């Protein structure tokens, strides 16, 4: 392979990558531009133009001292606690969901008993239960994490049960024919076999966690993104309010992207997946 062909291939791949990026973001960029012109023309205080939002956001978050990476107190006091609650709640929900899901899924009878209970609880819209958690834990992180866990556990739990129950019968018999001990059976066969479904559940849980983080903060919190958003709204400071809103959208997108990248890594062995990439 000569240098010319090598750089040609790299160049073409880079061009392909760039084209993909442009394609994904083109519509979004067009909509932002339309919003800009529409907002300037309309002049409504409730819908500031994107440029104004961007300026306010930069002022709000990135005008801090150099020692803290230019991040302001607003970031440390609000964004980090919110993210901590959201990710902490999500991880706890994932652990509980996977462990319980494996226990319930392995036992044929267990799901007969608890299945309807699970179906009942997962159907309750989690935001409606936030006041319940507020009574239980008072206002603050406990209530938020409790709400997040309660809402986020169900997709993981039910998907884990599904995944565990649907391990291919031939694999079950193969493992049995080798007298696979339980720990190896669970760790090397059941868990990987159920992994695609578990990851699907985790992804849904992630968005539920983000949603519940915001909603629980709207209802009762001393700090956080939702709380800041609510304060800005009540102070009629709409550029700030929109800044926090946009941040939520960005966070949702970033978490989803990171999660998908991780999923691609972990589930790289799936033949269909590799075909796509």
């Amino acid at each position, binding site marked *: 392979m000569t240098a010319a062909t090598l750089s040609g291939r790299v160049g073409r791949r880079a061009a392909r990558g760039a084209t993909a990026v442009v394609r994904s973001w083109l519509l979004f960029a067009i909509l932002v531009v339309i919003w800009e012109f529409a907002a300037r023309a309309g002049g409504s205080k409730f819908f500031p133009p994107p440029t104004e939002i961007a300026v306010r956001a930069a002022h709000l978050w990135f005008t801090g001292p150099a020692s803290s990476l230019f991040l302001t107190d607003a970031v440390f006091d609000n964004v980090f606690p919110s993210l901590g609650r959201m990710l902490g709640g999500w991880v706890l929900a994932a652990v509980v969901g996977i462990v319980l899901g494996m226990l319930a*899924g*392995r*036992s*044929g009878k267990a799901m007969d008993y608890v299945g309807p209970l699970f179906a009942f609880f997962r159907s309750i819209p989690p935001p409606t239960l936030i006041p319940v958690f507020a009574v239980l834990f008072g206002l603050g992180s406990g209530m938020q994490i409790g709400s997040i866990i309660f809402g986020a556990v169900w997709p993981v739990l039910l998907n884990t049960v599904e995944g*565990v*129950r649907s*391990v*291919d*019968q*031939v*694999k*079950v*018999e*193969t*493992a*049995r*024919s*080798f*007298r*696979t*001990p339980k720990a*190896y*059976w669970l760790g*090397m*066969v*059941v868990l*990987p*076999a159920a*992994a695609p479904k578990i990851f699907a559940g985790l992804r849904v849980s992630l968005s539920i966690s983000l949603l519940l983080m915001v909603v629980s903060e709207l209802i009762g919190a001393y700090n956080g993104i939702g709380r800041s958003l609510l304060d800005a709204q009540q102070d009629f400071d709409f550029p700030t309010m929109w800044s926090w809103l946009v941040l939520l959208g960005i966070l949702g997108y970033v978490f989803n992207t990171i999660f998908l990248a991780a999923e691609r890594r972990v589930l790289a*062995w*799936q*033949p269909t997946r590799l075909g796509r990439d």
Partner: protein
Amino acid sequence: MPTMLEVSGVSHRYGSGAKAHTAVHDLSFTVEAGQLASIVGPSGCGKSTLLRCIAGLTPPTDGTISLHGDRVAGVPDDLAVVFQDYSRSLFPWLSVQKNVEFPLRWRPIPRAERRARAAEALEHVGLSGVGGKFPWQLSGGMQQRVSIARALASRPALLLMDEPFASVDAQTRFELEDLTRRVQREQGSTVLVVTHDIDESVYLSDRVLVLSKSPASIVADLRVELPAERDQITTRESAEFVTLRGEVARLLHGDGAATSAAATAASDAAEWDLAEQSKSMDATGSKTRR
């Protein structure tokens, strides 16, 4: 030659009462150590059920099975099974090397030795360079070889093969048959192959057990007097082979007039029930684990 496997009076009945279906009825035979025996019978006659009973995956309703003298209750320690459906039997999340190492994972062997044994097993089946690949990247024949290598890596006293070459194309089948013979002779292992292919049963083995239609019983136990060194072309042309396979075919198809339409219909219905029952067993498969 010492007896490796002893099957006596084994019966297996699915279901109970009026809907019960006897898959296997009062089977008795022995397999000596170092022998390659094949069980041949029509589809759905219960040969796979018999194999599962021998493997300890399903307990027989009657009779006993002994592996080198020890009663089989549950899956015995030094036994390995090669299943027909290699794409579902191999673990897609493990590389070929790790798949072959799988039975050795919980044994008290150091990692280096485990790796060496897996590599050795892969070499025996002619797949030296593919340890790093994943099963789906290999052809069907190669995947079944990986399955065989995985079974061999655990150095079983008895190797069971359940219609192992039914899912590969004809030419690959010939290669795998020769491979199985070579490996069996090199390792001196005892192998029991279940197949529906008459030619394969005669070509492959030292001994052919012919089963009847369901409920299966042994119709004949034939010794294969072909030379130990066999070749796909010349052996299959030889008079010995032709006579033997003709005999097996006649035994299998039986006397045309005697097999009435009603009997065929009854056995077909029983096959359907069997399939339904094993489907319902699938759902609780995890429960019936060891």
